[in-house]
């Protein structure tokens, strides 16, 4: 592959630089070729590292990267990671995507983490022909968005459907109230749940991201008296909600999506809450348990779905790199070519993709929080 001169961009992007880059977005697309021989090969990694779920994503990726560096064949396929914080912001994500696309040493991207950022960045990866493997972006809007965009987590439409069935058949609930964070993730998951729930939806209310005052809603729910409350949001708002819910002593069953996997940290309040998680550290699979132990050894924490998916996305891309070499197109073709028999085995399950870029056969694991841990609900599917 020919080496062509290319502008070297700083790996740290300040907000002012982001704005400048936006205005000269077209310019940085000029004059760049593929990665030259002998140059260092990198994976881009992007997510909201400052958020709790973003940090867990990154921990999973870093653990995978540490293990990769320890492998005997690392010398044959050395790799570095270019960490970029997209702050869960679509515009920042698009800017970072352009940065990755124009950097010839970047052969693939781990992330993004959020649905909104991945949707915004997908257009850039599509035009720039660079593979992006989203970790926890679950929005249905991502399905089939580009042949260059994959994700290791199942879509919200799949997750919402699965949780609606679980609520109806497993839990036997038929009067549900729904709260959702008013963003792409919340709306997508809540909508999927609403459309698939076999019963009455008593209310369907938006809440702010990271909202803290839930007194009026909990009071309202108490009056409505649903037998199930489904919340499509993150633990940022979830903890406040659950606390208020306990304070007012509501009896309805609580069910949350993958955004609630971090809720288990509040051991007392979270006890008995059902969570549709992409991963359970309690799963008996030896591969999962090995990962959980290694993760605990490194961070002193129990890995959640964020960590597990970040870990899987990193390892999957490195696996592709060792198979086809540092070539963007070959890596994409390799990922697209995985099928049921050649599926890659990760800690979140076997991974291969449909034409839409969504994983085939993956779904959430129905868990219940018990003593601060996500316990797999037996017989749930």
């Amino acid at each position, binding site marked *: 592959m020919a080496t062509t001169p290319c502008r070297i961009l700083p790996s740290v992007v300040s907000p002012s630089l982001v704005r400048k880059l936006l*205005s000269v977005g077209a310019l940085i697309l000029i004059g760049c070729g593929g990665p030259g021989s002998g140059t260092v090969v990198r994976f881009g990694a992007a997510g909201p590292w400052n958020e709790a779920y973003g940090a867990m994503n990154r921990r999973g990726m870093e653990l995978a990267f540490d293990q990769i560096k320890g492998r005997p064949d690392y010398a044959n396929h050395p790799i570095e990671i270019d960490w970029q914080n997209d702050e869960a912001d*679509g*515009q920042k994500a698009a800017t970072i995507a352009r940065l990755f696309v124009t950097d010839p040493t970047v052969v693939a991207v781990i992330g993004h983490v959020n649905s909104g950022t991945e949707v915004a960045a997908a257009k850039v990866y599509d035009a720039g022909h660079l593979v992006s493997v989203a970790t926890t972006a679950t929005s249905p809007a991502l399905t089939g968005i580009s042949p260059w965009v994959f994700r290791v987590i199942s879509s919200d439409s799949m997750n919402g459907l699965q949780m609606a069935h679980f609520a109806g058949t497993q839990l036997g609930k038929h009067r549900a109230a729904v709260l959702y964070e008013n963003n792409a993730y919340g709306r997508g998951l809540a909508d999927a749940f609403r459309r698939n729930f076999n019963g009455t939806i008593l209310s369907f209310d*938006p*809440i*702010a991201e990271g909202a803290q005052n839930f007194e*009026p809603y909990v009071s309202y729910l108490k009056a409505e008296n649903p037998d199930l409350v489904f919340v499509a949001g993150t633990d940022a708002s979830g903890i406040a909600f659950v606390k208020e819910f306990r304070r007012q002593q509501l009896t309805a069953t609580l069910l949350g999506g993958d955004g609630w996997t971090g809720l288990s940290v509040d051991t007392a309040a979270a006890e008995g809450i059902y969570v549709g998680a992409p991963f359970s550290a309690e799963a008996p699979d030896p591969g999962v348990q090995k990962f959980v132990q290694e993760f605990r050894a490194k961070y002193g924490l129990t890995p959640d779905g964020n960590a597990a998916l970040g870990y899987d996305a990193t390892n999957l891309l490195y696996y592709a790199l060792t198979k086809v070499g540092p070539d963007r197109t070959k890596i994409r073709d390799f990922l697209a070519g995985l099928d049921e028999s050649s599926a890659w085995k990760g800690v979140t399950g076997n991974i291969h993709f449909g034409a839409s870029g969504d994983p085939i056969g993956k779904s959430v694991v129905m868990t219940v929080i018990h003593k601060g841990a996500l316990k797999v609900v037996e017989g749930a599917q």
Partner: protein
Amino acid sequence: MKFSLRDLGTIRGRLWGGFGVLVLLLVIAGAVSRSSMVTLANTMSSTLTSVQDESRLASQLSGAVAQTIEAGAQYLEGRDTASERVFREQGWTAHSIQRQMNDRSGQTAEEIGVLAAIDTKLSDLEVKYALAHRLADLGRGADAHAQAAKARAVVDPLLSNINRLAQLKSQKVTAASAELASETKHRATLMLGLIGLALIIGVGVVVLTVGSVGRPLDALVTQAERLSRGDLTARTTAAMPGEFRILADAMNRTGDSLSRIVSAAARTAENVSSSAHQLSSVSEEIAVSASHMANAMSEVSHGAETQVLQIRNVDETLTRVRNTSSEVKARADEVQSLAAEIEHSASDKRIEIEHALGILADVKTSVEQAASEVAALTSAAADITRFVQAVSQIAEQTNLLALNAAIEAARAGDAGRGFAVVADEVRKLAEQSQKAAQDVVQMTGLVTMRVTTSARAMESGASRVVEIERLSRDIDEALRVITAAASRTKAAASGVSAAAETTVGAATSAAGSLDTISKTAENHAAAAQEVNASTQEQSAACEEMTSASNVLLNESNQLRELVGGLKT
């Protein structure tokens, strides 16, 4: 077609050059205008489509947002489920439109920013109104109103964002229009420039052409008029464009040529006049000669016909000769074959005779041998006779002796008796010997006689053999003569046959020749008749020529006068 700078010296070159540039400019102008049209049409079409889509989405977005705000406020007053539904549905619609707009290509950073802000503010508004609704549901009117006030606080910034988006879209339309207008103006200017240039070049070409045609044309017209008045000294030497220079040169050369021709014509007219005179008299003479010739040819024609008749008689005779010769040949061939047969059988006979002669020679030799043996036998017989006579004398003597012995025995008495018997026996033996000797003589005589007879017969036979041999040789000689004669006859017959054949060939050939001669003679006759006719025509033509030469004489006289009037 090759075109060089040198060609610009000619009107054709200037016209080609001028019109070439003109056509090129017009083609360029056409291509530019067409490409402009196409580009503008495409740009306009895509710009208009894009603008339409964006305007539609923007108005849908603003409508959805407006309805959300309205329904949000309305629910607080009436708490009707319809308003609740409209509030939620329109909010979702607005989010979906916002996503669609965000997904469109060609969004500026500001547009994306404004869209993001609209989404955030709308989400905020929804959250706040939703909370207000629940507070109202709980019957906490004051809290609901406070919360609604917070929601309303978001409305103005949201609407201002929507207005900003509309403004941006409108600016985009204006910018696109301005760009289109500027592009159109630019293309129009370019086209006008090209067309103007083409016009200037066209006018220049016309002016140059008119100028370069007019002046030389005047000079040439003047020269032509002078020539038409008989002034052959008129010449044009002024400088002029290529084609007129060629024309002027041609007219100048024409003047030169005319001068030379007129001088020559004057001389020729004189010559023609005198020649015509001579011609007239010669023509008359020829006419007379032709008349004579016509008569002569008439006779020739008659003679030729007679000749044809005679030749046909000869032809018949020749045919007869040919037939006879054919018969002769046939007979000669027969003789030839007969002679060959004779020759053949004579040769055979001669061979037989040769053989007989050989046998005769053998016989002759045998006879001669027999004769000599007979002679030897005869002499042997004579010897025998003499020997037998000797034996006979001996026997006679013996007999006498026996008688003497017997007498003596008888005297000796008995003692002699035995002797007497022997003497008797000897006498008897002597008598038998004598008798045998006489038989031998007799036999020998008989043999000798017979041998003699045989010898005579042999002599006679030998002489006959000689005679036969002589006869045979005569026959052989005769046969040889016959063979030679037959051979000669054959040769002669062959000669006759060949001669006859030659005669036939000659006769045939002669007949062919005669035919040819006959035809030739007929042709001669016909030709003679034609010549006769021609001669008569010639005679008539001569007469015409005579009158024509008289006309020529008159004309040449007139010409001489005419040429004399031209100025050279």
